[in-house]
């Protein structure tokens, strides 16, 4: 088996709907200080920094230039990935596997509250010549996809709503989560229609927050931490951006990213070997679609499993015990970071009242959100 990479330090802020007391710099600084403290390192010990940011989300051109100060990365090797934190994590893992870098820091941030025209910004992700002139909301992509998913009999509308009920309920046990609530399936079904069948409560609300992690080589891990969490597998994939010809019911890129991560981790039967999963649930049905793409449930079975409580905190495969995007908040490029964060806490046994007993192997999956088809997956173990 090839050498593994350890997560040796974890730093994070709470995830909140606004964060007016801190600039993006101070948010990342807060997370970085905690991560370095945990690993007992200083920036001078770090061989490479990998940040996550997208210009349009930050409102800066070449926003990567603005990542360094708050990480202590000034005058050090640093780079930025315009994707999800999990893509950055993959880069960090690769740096360490080259054996040229022993300690790598990976960062992601969301300042969603600073983006004042998010619907316009999402619309701007459409093809400018073929799609944008139609003046259709980007949420339509979620509606089109969910409709196809439902009509093909992959889940019922109620089962999708049950995802929202579960995740917002889980978030009540997560002190970091901003959108915990005790609601019912009817609350979801009766909420305002957005892009049918997607309703208001099906959509993860936006949140701010920052996450920083210190990665290190297996060799170095014992000197930085007595509770390493191992990255056993990581994978990523993208489908075509063409709206017109993508698969409208299956998350093919998620399947490919998952298979890549499983291969690296040596996982042959995911549904038996994964103890808990944090998957993207930016729109309620996406959790079900992603669980099936990841082979954790047979096609058409994830909705039923959710209704039956199999994905609940005390179920056979707890999913999004952190609250997921629906309960914690949608963190844009930091979304995958919140998922890895939850796994690290769970695998260390530090998840408090939402601790999954005997959590040994966890899966984190990110999707870059509507209207994209890019995904990444990481497999972690204690």
């Amino acid at each position, binding site marked *: 088996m090839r050498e593994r990479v350890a997560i040796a330090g974890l730093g994070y802020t709470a995830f909140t709907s606004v*964060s*007016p*007391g*801190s*600039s*993006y*710099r*101070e948010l990342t*600084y807060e997370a970085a200080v905690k991560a*370095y403290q945990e690993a007992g390192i*200083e*920036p001078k010990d770090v061989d490479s920094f990998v940040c996550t940011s997208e210009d*349009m989300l930050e*409102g800066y051109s070449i926003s990567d230039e603005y990542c*360094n*100060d*708050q990480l*202590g990365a*000034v005058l050090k090797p640093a780079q930025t990935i315009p994707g999800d934190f999990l893509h950055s994590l993959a880069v960090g893992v690769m740096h360490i596997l080259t054996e040229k870098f022993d300690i790598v820091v990976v960062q992601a941030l969301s*300042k969603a*509250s*600073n*983006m*004042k*025209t998010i619907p*316009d*910004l999402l619309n*701007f992700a459409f093809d*400018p*010549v073929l799609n*944008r*002139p139609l003046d259709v909301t980007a949420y339509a992509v979620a509606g089109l996809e969910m409709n196809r998913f439902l009509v093909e009999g992959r889940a019922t509308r109620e089962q999708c709503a049950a995802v929202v009920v579960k995740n917002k309920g889980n978030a009540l046990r997560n002190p970091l989560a901003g959108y915990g609530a005790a609601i019912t399936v009817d609350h979801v079904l009766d909420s305002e229609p957005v892009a049918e069948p997607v309703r208001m409560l099906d959509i993860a609300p936006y949140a701010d927050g920052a996450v920083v992690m210190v990665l290190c080589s297996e060799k170095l891990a014992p000197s930085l931490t007595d509770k390493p969490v191992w990255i056993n597998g990581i994978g990523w994939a993208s489908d075509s951006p063409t709206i017109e010809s993508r698969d409208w019911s299956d998350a093919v890129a998620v399947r490919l990213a998952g298979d890549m991560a499983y291969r690296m981790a040596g996982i042959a039967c995911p549904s038996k070997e994964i103890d808990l999963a944090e998957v993207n649930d930016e729109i309620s049905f996406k959790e079900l679609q992603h669980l099936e793409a990841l082979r954790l449930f047979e096609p058409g079975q994830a909705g039923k499993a959710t209704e039956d409580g199999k994905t609940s905190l005390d179920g056979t495969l707890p999913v999004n015990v952190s609250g997921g995007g629906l309960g914690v908040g949608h963190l844009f490029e930091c979304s995958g970071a919140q998922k890895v964060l939850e796994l690290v806490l769970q695998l260390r046994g530090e998840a408090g009242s939402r601790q999954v007993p005997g959590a040994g192997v966890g899966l984190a999956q990110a999707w870059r959100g509507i209207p994209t088809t890019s995904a990444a997956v990481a497999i972690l173990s204690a």
Partner: protein
Amino acid sequence: MELEKFELGATPLKDSAIKEGKVLTVAKKPNLKYAWDNGPAIGRYLAELKEGRIIARKCNKCRRIMIPPRMFCELCWRPTDEWVYVEDTGTVNTFSICYVNWDASRIKKGEKPHLPAVIEIDGASPGMGILHVLGEVEPEKIKIGMKVRAVWKKPEEREGSITDILYFKPVRG
């Protein structure tokens, strides 16, 4: 040749070709708005500008007095320690004389060129400066090392912005 706009390389489509429908086009105006949280350092900096003062932060480890202020020292990797008022005078570190506007359109005939400069502020550590513009000076008279002073907007016109300083002008004699 008088250029309408400063451009490098290639041969762009002329605006007229688009306006006259000679090429197929789609047009949509982006509506992208941001409201950045300044945080305590830049927030205080702007509030002090409104009062006609320039404030910096000091790191007690490297002893740097930093402007614009920041809550952590990016070199020592520790929180900064104190607020320090600095002068509204300084020295030109470097400057440029710009014959194009911010969007690279050429300034009109008879208009004065833009004069951006980095000004090392008196009271802050050497090399610590702010980007601003120079005024009340002929371009050919500007020299690196020249002493300058801030010219402020009237108090009632200030709004907590870097433009509360109109420009820096040479300190004479």
